[in-house]
C-alpha cells in the first residue's frame, strides 16, 4: 500500500486569533486535505479557517541546537519593561 502525502493542519478557532497546529492527515492534494481536515478536526465548529501544509515543506529547528538558538535571549533582561527603574508615583507608563 502506498501512503498518500502527509499534511499538517492548522485551525483558526475564531476571527482575531492565530491559526494553531492541531495534527496531521493524509490526502492526495490540497483540496482533499482541506476537506478531510474539516471532517477530522472541525466536527464541532472548532474553526472558521483552515490551513494545510504538506509536511515535507515544514522545516523545524532542532532540539539539539536549542541552546545556541534560545540561550542568547536569557541574559538580555533589558528587553523587558521591568528592567527600567522608574518611580512608583509615575502613572500611565
Amino acid at each position, binding site marked *: 500500500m502506498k501512503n498518500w502525502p502527509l499534511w499538517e493542519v492548522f485551525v483558526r478557532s475564531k476571527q482575531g486569533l492565530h491559526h494553531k497546529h*492541531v*495534527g496531521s492527515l493524509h490526502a492526495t492534494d490540497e483540496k482533499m486535505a482541506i476537506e478531510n481536515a474539516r471532517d*477530522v478536526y472541525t466536527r464541532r465548529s472548532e474553526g472558521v479557517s483552515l490551513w494545510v501544509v504538506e509536511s515535507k515543506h515544514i522545516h523545524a529547528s532542532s532540539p539539539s541546537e536549542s541552546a545556541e538558538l534560545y540561550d542568547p535571549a536569557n541574559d538580555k533582561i533589558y528587553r523587558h519593561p521591568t528592567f527600567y527603574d522608574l518611580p512608583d508615583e509615575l502613572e500611565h507608563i
Partner: protein
Amino acid sequence: MADIKSLEEKFQSIVDAETKIEPKDWMPEAYRKTLIRQISQHAHSEIVGMLPEGNWINRAPTLRRKVGLLAKVQDEAGHGLYLYSACETLGIERDELFDQLHSGKAKYSSIFNYPTTSWADIGAIGWLVDGAAIMNQVMLCRTSYGPYARAMVRICKEESFHQRQGYEILLTLSKGSEEQRAMLQDAVNRWWWPSLMMFGPTGKESTHSAQSMKWKIKRKTNDELRQQFVDISIGQAEILGVTLPDPDLKYNEETGHYDFGEIDWEEFWNVVKGNGPCNKERLAARVKASEEGQWVRDAAMAYAEKQAKRKSEASKVA
C-alpha cells in the same frame, strides 16, 4: 555510546519534571517502541470499534437515535485518525500501521470482539465500554508524550457525549415494557465483565506497567483504574434499575471501595489470542475494506499527480 546512559538520565529528569517530550526530542528506543505499540493499538481500537456499533445504524429505532449513533461512530473514526497522526510523529508510516493491524501483528481492544445482538447493546456500549475507555483516556491526557496527550484531550472532550447517548438509550429502555427491561438487563449482563477486562491484566501479569509508570506514559495501574470504574458504576446501575452480574459486588467499609468478584482471565486471554466470538469477522471486515478500497486510493493519487503535472506544464508555457 558511553553517553547513552547520560542521555537516558537526562530524559528521565525531563519526564520527572513533568515537561512533555516532543517528537524531535531525544528519547530512549524502548520509550519510542512502547509508545508506537500503545498508540497504534489505541488507534486500531477506535477504528475496529466502529464495527459493532455500525451494525445498528440502519436499524436504530428512531431518527434521534440514528443521528446520535451516526455522530458517535464518526467521532470514533476521528479518534482513530488523531491517534494515527500522533503515532506517525514517532517515525512510523501509516501504511505500516495498517499492515500490522491487517496481518494480526498489532492488537486492538478485545472488547470489540464481542457481538452486538440487540439494540440495548448500543446503550450498554456507550455506558460501559465508552465509560471504561474514558477512565483510561482521562489519565492519558497527562501522558508524557506531547502529541499523544494532545490527541487525548481532544478525544476526552468528545467522549462524554458518547457515554451520555448510551446511557440515555438504557434509561429509555428502563422505563419501557417488560421485554425492553429484560433486553436492558441482558445487555448489561453480557457487557459488564468484558468492560472490566478492558483495563487489562491485573498487577502481577501486567508486563509493561512498571516501566510505563516510570516514563509517565501511564499514571495509574490497570487495577486502580478498574476499581475506580467499578465504584462509579454502582450508582449509575441503580438509576437504571439493573443488577450488575456479580454476586461478590459489595461495599468494603475498610477500603472505601467496592469489592468485586474474580475476573475470568482465561476468557480474557482467549479473546486476546484471537478466539473471541467475533475476532475473525472484525479483522476480515477491516481487510476487506482496505483491499476493496485500494483502487479508489490509487485512482485518487493518480488523478492528483496528473493534475499537478498539468499545472506545472501550464506554468512553464506561460
